[in-house]
């Protein structure tokens, strides 16, 4: 009976998602709309700006590759100018800050890689001892997670400082409406957890 109830609930959610799916839109020349209905209402700045910096840096590198080959790169150069309504200076600033973020993120990644290499050398080929539980997560990795979060916020603040508060407010609004809705928490256990007695309980991230 519990099984039937479970699937009925799942099916209901599935139907809701179908009925709430946005229709095809054509009012404007080009429309683009995110469809990630599971997106939390307000993602933290550290998550939104991390994706933005990665995306801007990736397009910047792609544009440079094309320019090296003397090919047209403006699709990549102009992507954020149009999406976030930036002028040339603001666009260049965003690219510059994204590159700086990327460079400093690599320093954190190097530390992460050290820990991963140590872990893998301890468990050669990822092979665990079947008679023991998996090793607990390395607390240093969590410290590196916090360091990365701090870096993202620092670069976001630098972006704000260079833009000035009123322009930042406008552009941050664009980022919130045009970038953030496309970001989705994909962790499978994000929605709920079991409590000790085996019932479903809401999840709380113990790090917060």
């Amino acid at each position, binding site marked *: 009976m519990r*099984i039937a109830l479970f*699937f009925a609930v*799942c*099916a209901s*959610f599935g139907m809701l998602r179908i009925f709430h799916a946005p229709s*095809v839109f*054509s009012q404007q*020349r*080009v*429309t*683009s*709309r995110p*469809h*990630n209905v*599971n997106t939390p209402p307000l993602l933290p700045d550290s*998550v939104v700006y991390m*994706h933005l910096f*990665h*995306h801007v840096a*990736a397009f910047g590198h*792609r544009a440079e590759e094309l320019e090296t080959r003397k090919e*047209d790169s*403006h*699709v*990549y150069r102009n992507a954020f100018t*149009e999406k976030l309504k930036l002028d040339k200076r603001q666009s260049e600033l965003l690219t510059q800050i994204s590159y700086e973020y990327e460079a400093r993120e690599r320093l*954190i990644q190097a530390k*992460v890689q050290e820990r991963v*290499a140590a872990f893998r050398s301890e*468990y050669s*080929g*990822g*092979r665990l001892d*079947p008679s023991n539980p*998996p*090793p*607990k*997560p*390395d607390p240093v*990795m*969590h410290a590196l*997670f916090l360091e*990365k979060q701090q870096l993202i916020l620092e670069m976001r603040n630098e972006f704000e400082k260079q833009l000035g508060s009123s322009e930042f407010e406008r552009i941050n609004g664009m980022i919130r409406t045009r970038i953030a809705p*496309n*970001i*989705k*928490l*994909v*962790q*499978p*256990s*994000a*929605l*709920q*957890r*079991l*409590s*000790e007695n*085996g*019932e479903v309980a809401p999840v709380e991230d113990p790090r917060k």
Partner: protein
Amino acid sequence: MKQLLLPLALVVFARCSPAALILRGRTTPTLGYSAYGYTTLTFDSGTDVLVGYSETDMDPDLVEYYESWVIGRLLDSNGNSLSSGGARDTVGAGYASITLQYIGKAGATYRMYGTHNGYMGACDCVEGNNYYDGYNESYWNSQDIVDATGFFNFYGDLNDSPVLKTPTITMGESYDSATISIPAACGDDRDAIIKEYFALGVTLHPVCPSFSSSVPPDSLFTFSQLNTSYYPDWAILLNSLYTGIRVTQSNYGSTLTPTSGYRDPRKEKDIDTQQGVRNWTVNSRHEYGDAIDLGTGNSQTKFNSIRSAGLKAGACAEPVGQSGLNHVHLDWRQSDGVVCSAAWLR
């Protein structure tokens, strides 16, 4: 009852997060991390190029056990795959991204999907390779349990803990879509000229009515004199240009001789390249339809007189050091709300 429920179970499986499953006989694992998926699709109306981007990110404290893995698929409205690719983080960067590019068609709808996976590196490597992580997250995942019995047992009363049998854990999917509705084409050379503006990065994005194929009756010059582009039938010629020329000639008191007028961006680029200009004038006023070059016969006196007449007519006038002595460049960008530098106004 099981037989009736099974098909339904398979249908809803993709829509239910594994987290929604009720699992018995286990205590609460420690939640240790977050992972995010991000997918976006952008369209460039000048070149009809669609660019899809998708990224899977994992917090650094998760990287010990998982490699980020993203699979991107760009689909048309019928679900046909137009472009696809994947990327996996094998160096501990914490994220993987993929960029896909495709030339779109007017009126079509496209969708970019990103599938966000984690690839596990830790297993007991016996009895069919059971994969684990230190957060016990893999216990919660049933994605490799595909046979009906196992699938059903997982949701049922079995006390056995399901474990991941493959190193891949699919965490979710994100997507974005873009509908391209390009206005009807002009159906003549204007389509090619408009594309040049986009392709060469000119700020101006003209549309079909921006162009004309004749001049007004009171124009001092013929259409072919004012249109010095690669396209003899169409040119952008603004009213400020006609007025400016009339007032300039009146101020000058003699007949003027045009040497260049409207140029399409490709023509402008070619001229600048031939003249050895390192960075061609991407936003030349000749492309905007309010500029003209007037011949001087290399006469300094004539140059000064025409330039002075143009300035009095409200033009921005290029200094001789930039234009050379053989022509005077005048444009009426100020009528378009664009300011020129002080050297062009004295």
